[in-house]
């Protein structure tokens, strides 16, 4: 009889304790970070070839974004240089055609 009273008192006490305890807020992206850590740990456990390493690097958004930006910048810069050269050559030929008859060149 006394034991039953003690058990119900423990349950009440436990409930009161749970209510009074404050849980701190979880950091942002807690769940994503947990999964990422689990994935990283699993990936580290598997032996990866250089091709897999490269492929995983390419698929990382930061790397892919940087590579696309770099390629576009290099392409635009090289294209501008070539375009300037072509425009210069065209202008030179225009002048030459105006002052030097083709039969004399």
């Amino acid at each position, binding site marked *: 009889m006394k034991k039953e009273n003690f058990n119900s008192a423990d349950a009440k006490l436990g409930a009161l304790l749970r209510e009074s305890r404050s849980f701190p807020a979880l950091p942002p992206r807690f769940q994503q970070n947990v999964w990422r850590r689990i994935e990283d740990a699993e990936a580290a456990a598997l032996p990866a070839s250089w091709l897999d390493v490269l492929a995983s690097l390419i698929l990382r958004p930061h790397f892919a974004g940087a590579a696309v930006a770099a390629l576009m910048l290099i392409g635009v810069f090289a294209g501008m240089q070539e375009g300037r050269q072509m425009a210069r050559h065209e202008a030179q030929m225009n002048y030459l055609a105006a002052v*030097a008859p083709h039969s004399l060149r």
Partner: protein
Amino acid sequence: MNRSLAILLGALALGAAIFVGSYFVSQRATEICCANPADDLSWLRTEFHLDDAEMAHIRELHEGYLPKCAEMCAKIAAKKGELEAALGSGTNINPEAQVKLNELAALRAQCQAQMLQHFATVSQAMPPEQGRRYLAEMQKLTLGTHEQLEQSMSGDTGHEHHH
């Protein structure tokens, strides 16, 4: 392994497409933006860093030279017609054709001298250093083709031309 290879090849293809696309778009855009086909003298301004006053003087010289050049071109074209008529359908160069050939050569030489004189005059309207560069560039562009042709016909290329 196969998945990684596919990713790598796909990334390479995509990268090449991005590079080539941006290269050609910017090349075309720059060419359209920088070119000024309406003005024959635009090259002089940009290449030799000429100011408005120098350009105005050079434009005046250029416009004075063009009618003389056109007149000379018309004479050369007429002489070419005479030469073709003299050559006719024969297989030998007759004395009349030889005379026309000499006259054509003389006209060309006269036209070339006039052109070189114009280049010299234009070069004097530029700042000295730019003028020297212009004259050298124009001589290279107009006389260089003949020099290359003559060099290719001489012993320089190992091919002897005996007369």
